[in-house]
């Protein structure tokens, strides 16, 4: 058992996989000499050299295409986006080139690549740098989409993502990089690219979430239990494509209520998907309508007062959960 930050967990995952497989390399802006814009690749240039830890110009569309081409030719690139906001420049290669080619080639050409970087709302950086892209990527067949919360998940899932033969979108969160977690020595045995985890068992309401929203759900679950006697089951979705239907449905059958918490917008969000899944598969078990807590449907504002209003947080989770239980 070890106590490390998510930042170190991600770095260790890459270093271990790079040691294990010479075809794994890291490509992105500031990943080498600068040690990563968020210092995720600290020390990797020193250990692996400039042929495997490669600084690119600021040119997301181009270097993502280069990564995808290299993956088709048998390498295992890790593409770091400084943030996923900038991956918008490259989304054509993520979806059209990486996700669809296996199918279009009748199974001949696969693309073992990881697209990773910070996603979501880091705080006080305004609309163009505050955006959760989970539902955008989770919509697309051919991709796997992962959003870890803890250091253990970050390490185990990144290692699995690098080993996976498919393109994996790996959504990190800037506000979690410095957070410390206990971590076991063999994290890959404890996680999977298609499994949600129940972080806290409960009987009254299921709260699903991913990435930093897991923190809001866990904090809220404490308050709900201590102050209001409400027993919340907290599920960390972890993988958004494929989504672990079974864990969600089984939980709802037990609790009869479900609330999803996310940083993205509500329309066509991950919460919308979960609501639909629950209605289709566990309608008769529901004691009240499924609810979604998301960001307000506005470009995320800069001013702290407005940003707080726009974002999900644990207080809002408590309020919504209580209303669902009429307590």
């Amino acid at each position, binding site marked *: 058992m070890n106590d490390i930050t998510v930042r170190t967990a991600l770095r260790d995952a890459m270093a271990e996989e790079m040691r294990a497989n010479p075809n794994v390399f890291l490509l992105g802006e500031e990943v080498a000499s600068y040690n990563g814009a968020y210092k995720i690749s600290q020390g990797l240039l020193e250990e692996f050299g400039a042929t495997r830890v490669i600084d690119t110009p600021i040119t997301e569309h181009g270097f993502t*295409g280069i990564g995808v*081409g290299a993956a088709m030719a048998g390498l295992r690139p890790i593409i770091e986006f400084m943030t996923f906001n900038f991956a918008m420049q490259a989304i054509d290669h993520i979806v059209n080139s990486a996700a669809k080619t296996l199918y279009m080639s009748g199974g001949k050409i696969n693309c073992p690549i990881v697209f990773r970087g910070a996603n979501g709302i880091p705080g006080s950086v305004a609309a163009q740098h505050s955006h959760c892209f989970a539902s955008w990527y989770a919509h697309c067949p051919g991709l*796997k989409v992962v959003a870890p919360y803890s250091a253990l998940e970050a390490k185990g899932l990144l290692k699995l993502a690098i080993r996976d033969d498919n393109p994996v979108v790996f959504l990190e969160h800037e506000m979690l990089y410095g957070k410390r977690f206990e971590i076991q020595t063999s994290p890959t045995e404890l996680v999977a690219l298609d499994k949600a985890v129940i972080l806290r068992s409960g009987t009254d309401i299921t709260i699903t979430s991913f990435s930093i929203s897991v923190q809001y759900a866990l904090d809220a679950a404490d308050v709900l239990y201590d102050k209001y006697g409400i027993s919340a089951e907290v599920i960390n979705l972890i993988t958004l494509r494929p989504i672990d239907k079974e864990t969600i449905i089984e939980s709802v059958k037990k609790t009869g209520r479900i609330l999803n918490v996310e940083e993205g917008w509500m329309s066509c969000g991950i919460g919308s998907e979960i609501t639909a899944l629950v209605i289709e598969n566990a309608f008769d078990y529901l004691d009240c309508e499924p609810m979604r807590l998301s960001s307000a449907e506005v470009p995320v504002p800069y001013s702290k007062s407005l940003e707080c209003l726009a974002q999900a947080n644990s207080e809002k989770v408590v309020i919504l959960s209580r209303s669902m239980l009429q307590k």
Partner: protein
Amino acid sequence: MINVKDILALYRKMVLVRAFEEKASMLYAQGHVLGFCHLYIGQEAVATGIFHNLSSNDSSITSYRDHAHMLILGVHPNVVMAELCGKVTGSSKGKGGSMHMYSKEHNFYGGNGIVGAQVALGTGLAFAHKYKNDGGISFTFFGDGAANQGQVYESFNMASLWKLPIVYVLENNGYAMGTSTKRAASGKGLATRGDSFEIPTILVDGMNLFDVLEKSKEAISYVRCGNGPIIMHVDTYRYRGHSMSDPATYRTREEVNAVKENRDPILKVKNILINEYSILLDDIVKVDNEIGDIIEQAAKFAIESKFPEESELEMDVTI
């Protein structure tokens, strides 16, 4: 020096491509081929000449105008025609169609429907050659339309910075769909687009097989020596519209006919074989007839093949 046997073999390949494309056009009219279908007729000498100098480690990639590349690399015409017809015997089991054909065996990576995307992907293939140090080169084909996409220049920049082993083949056929290069490209012409990246450009007459052969040899030798990327600016012409649904009203019949009469790449090789190598017309007709039979068989194979079963629908989404 190229010998007469090689020239005959290359002539045969060009005739194969043209006859295949003409048959594809007929099958399209008959409803066997659906959707988009972009023909290479007129441009045959370009891929034929360049692929003649390919080594087994090399890789290649192109746009949606990809049937010829498959055939010239050696994929059986039956398989290519079956893919056009959406049959399970096709190169992608009918899931890709005209625009998405691949041959792992020949390191051919498609078959890309997003204009310009193949330039970044092809640069990635070159990156992989350099990373693996396998001595291979990436041949990345793109048209004059793609030449105005931003990612082409992002790719040029990195290919030049990192000295990647890549031959960029800019097939300038004069028209991006219906927009002539005159209306789409500012500056001194597409042949100067590599200048700011210090990527040398070789000017090639794409309607002349011998010029393509000679210049591609030059380009390959430059890249294999570790000098980094090179651009072949290939002046060529497509006889048909952009795709089957394009009647090509943006250019005059006289313009097309003048190219057919004066610059046709197949006719040129045919005349040289007869006039300079004393090949008998009968021998050439024999080749033409053999190809005719192969194409008829390909069409029959494609039409008689089965469509993919329902079990194929959800296969190959992920591994």
